[in-house]
């Protein structure tokens, strides 16, 4: 768990930003639940997602978006959320229909609109995945500052107006006799809820936002002896659920958002069970605290199942059949990206080693090293015999280019076919896309004859990947399918 907080951990922003969103939602969720506005917690994130999808379609934005896309998404999310909120509030005040009618209609329309806007957007599938699963991976330092600022502002406003918000929520008519205008505090609360949801959806997706709006608050209200305690417990459950869920996702190769929500759900179930069994509230609170951690070890074993699924045999593609009888030496890949692409020590080692059935080592890897390992694995899946040459034995055997126009020198010490690779691009975008350019060449080491060449030059969608192993596991198969001609 400690490696998640390491300053050089690539996904530090994803964790801190996601934690900020979880805490923000857990605070807003208390009043959302108390005011029986849970359905709004479903409908508004969906409206926000529809807003993002609509604006992306209108502006032609799609994959590989940068800072502009990020800002555009935030503006769209805020705009759609507040328009929806305004319509709901106005409709509620001017109509005698039950409030849930409007909320239900908003949810249905927003869900349909999201899918339709994504469908008519040529780059829609990417947005769809991003919208539904969130973009934790793309959280920037600026986003972190924004989340922190909003979290501090919401906490401060909740503290400053704690009495007024309680009065106007618990008994609006009584609050009027005390000189408080419920409408004013309704607006304040709706502004905070709308802003929090819009920001949360943009960074973490509707599922995470709705899950953390509702589940920590429900768990807290089950056991809390008072309102302040409810806020504290809700925040605690949210923090525990997010960190626990992230850790489980990290260990078990699962999507992080659903895993976090699942842990929050387990906390709520534990609290409900504890209270139903008439346990003391403090005991139920303790159950909540340990529930998330208790789930983790069981989930971790699912990694092996994922690795087994990934090992299924594949067709040969464009690779030469004649080489099936000869062992192929996979040489260390060259890094021509101009970037170090170093993977923090300890992550990939275990993943690759476990995927290949080897004991893990403590040596650090770079992305080209990982792709070399993956190339060997993918060749084996296609029926070839492979030996992966360790990076320590690397020699300057390949001069210049590889790929279609490659001319390769004979690698010393090898007599059979060798696979050489050059990584020219490996860029992670803010939209959950990996832009890869990898050139491969199979060379006869003795004759220096080029036996085969291929290249992967396509964007790979990795919307749910949050860690290096997720990225490389998710991206590995499509990269080599492209290069080996399986598509």
């Amino acid at each position: 768990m400690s490696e998640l907080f390491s300053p050089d951990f690539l996904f530090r922003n994803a964790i801190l930003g996601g934690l900020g969103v979880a805490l923000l939602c857990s605070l807003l969720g208390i009043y959302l639940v108390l005011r029986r506005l849970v359905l709004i917690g479903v409908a508004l994130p969906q409206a926000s997602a529809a807003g993002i999808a609509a604006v992306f379609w209108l502006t032609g934005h799609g994959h590989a978006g940068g800072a502009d896309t990020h800002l555009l998404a935030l503006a769209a999310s805020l705009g759609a959320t507040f328009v929806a909120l305004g319509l709901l509030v106005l409709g509620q005040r001017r109509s005698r229909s039950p409030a849930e009618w409007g909320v239900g209609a908003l949810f249905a329309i927003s869900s349909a609109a999201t899918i339709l806007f994504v469908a008519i957007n040529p780059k829609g599938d990417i947005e769809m995945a991003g919208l539904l699963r969130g973009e934790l991976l793309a959280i920037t330092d600026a986003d972190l500052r924004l989340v922190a600022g909003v979290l501090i502002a919401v906490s401060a406003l909740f503290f400053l107006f704690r009495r007024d918000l309680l009065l106007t929520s618990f008994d609006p008519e009584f609050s009027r006799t005390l000189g408080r205008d419920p409408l004013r505090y309704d607006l304040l609360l709706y502004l905070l809820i709308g802003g929090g949801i819009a920001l949360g959806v943009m960074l973490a997706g509707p599922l995470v936002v709705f899950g953390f709006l509702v589940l920590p608050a429900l768990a807290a209200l089950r056991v809390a002896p008072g309102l302040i305690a409810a806020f504290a417990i809700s925040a605690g459950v949210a923090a525990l659920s997010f960190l626990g869920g992230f850790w489980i996702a990290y260990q078990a190769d699962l999507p992080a958002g659903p895993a976090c929500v699942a842990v929050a759900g387990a906390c709520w179930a534990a609290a409900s069970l504890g209270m139903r069994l008439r346990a003391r509230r403090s005991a139920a609170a303790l159950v909540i605290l340990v529930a998330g951690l208790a789930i983790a070890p069981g989930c971790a074993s699912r990694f092996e199942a994922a690795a087994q699924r990934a090992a299924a045999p594949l067709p040969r593609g464009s690779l030469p059949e004649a080489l099936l009888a000869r062992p192929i030496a996979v040489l260390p890949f060259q890094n021509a990206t101009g970037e170090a692409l170093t993977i923090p020590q300890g992550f990939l080692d275990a993943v690759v080693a476990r995927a290949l059935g080897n004991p893990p080592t403590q040596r650090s890897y770079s992305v080209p090293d990982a792709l070399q390992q993956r190339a060997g694995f993918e060749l084996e899946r296609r029926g070839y015999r492979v030996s992966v040459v360790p990076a320590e034995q690397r020699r300057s055997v390949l001069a210049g280019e590889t790929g279609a126009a490659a001319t390769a020198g004979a690698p010393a010490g090898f007599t059979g076919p060798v696979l050489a690779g050059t990584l020219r691009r490996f860029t992670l975008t803010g939209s959950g896309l990996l832009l890869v350019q990898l050139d491969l060449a199979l060379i006869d080491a003795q004759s220096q004859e080029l036996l085969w060449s291929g290249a992967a030059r396509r964007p790979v969608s990795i919307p749910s990947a949050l860690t290096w192993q997720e990225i490389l596991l998710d991206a590995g198969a499509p990269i080599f399918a492209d290069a080996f001609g399986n598509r």
Partner: protein
Amino acid sequence: MTDPAPLLTVDRADFGYDGRPVVRGASLVARRRELVAVLGANGSGKTTLLRGLLGFLPPLAGRVLRGPDLRVGYVPQRETLDPLYPLSAYQVARTGSWRDLPFWRLAGARERTLTRAALAACRASDFASRRYSELSGGQRQRVLLARALATEPELLLLDEPTAGVDPEAERGILDLLGELRDTRGLSIWMVTHHVQALAGRADRTITVSEGRLRPEAAA
């Protein structure tokens, strides 16, 4: 019994919703140290009149004159309060003491004293630490009464304070209201259906029938 300066005067006022009057031509005067029962069948306009007295409904016609800085305490029907809130009886009663507390100030000794005194006056101290939603109907009513008292009211308006409570609890609440009238000099107006239980307790009764107030009568 009479007071030269009435707390509140309603002069030929209409009260209603969306411009349509439900109560028409209401005229009445609220004075200190009296217990007034507002009677009437369901849908007669009792609650609309009460909302007019509270100031929630501005008069569609006529006028409502309030004394300077009139402090109104309000006890709603207890079913209108959501049991989902994790509040103890003390915490519910305490909200009444926040009337003059600006948002930037922390609640202090004054608010604590007001709350405890109000709970004691309503004989609700014994269950003050229990969760409000777990109290019986009569106990909840006492807590809501304590909350209204913590606002230090001159005029106390109650909406069906004895609805749904057992006869013993009902007698206890009515005794308490009489006591508050006598000891604190409050003007207490209560909307109720329970005519029999009021016998000998109310100083006046006002009957609302089809939106019209019948002439006031001594109980």
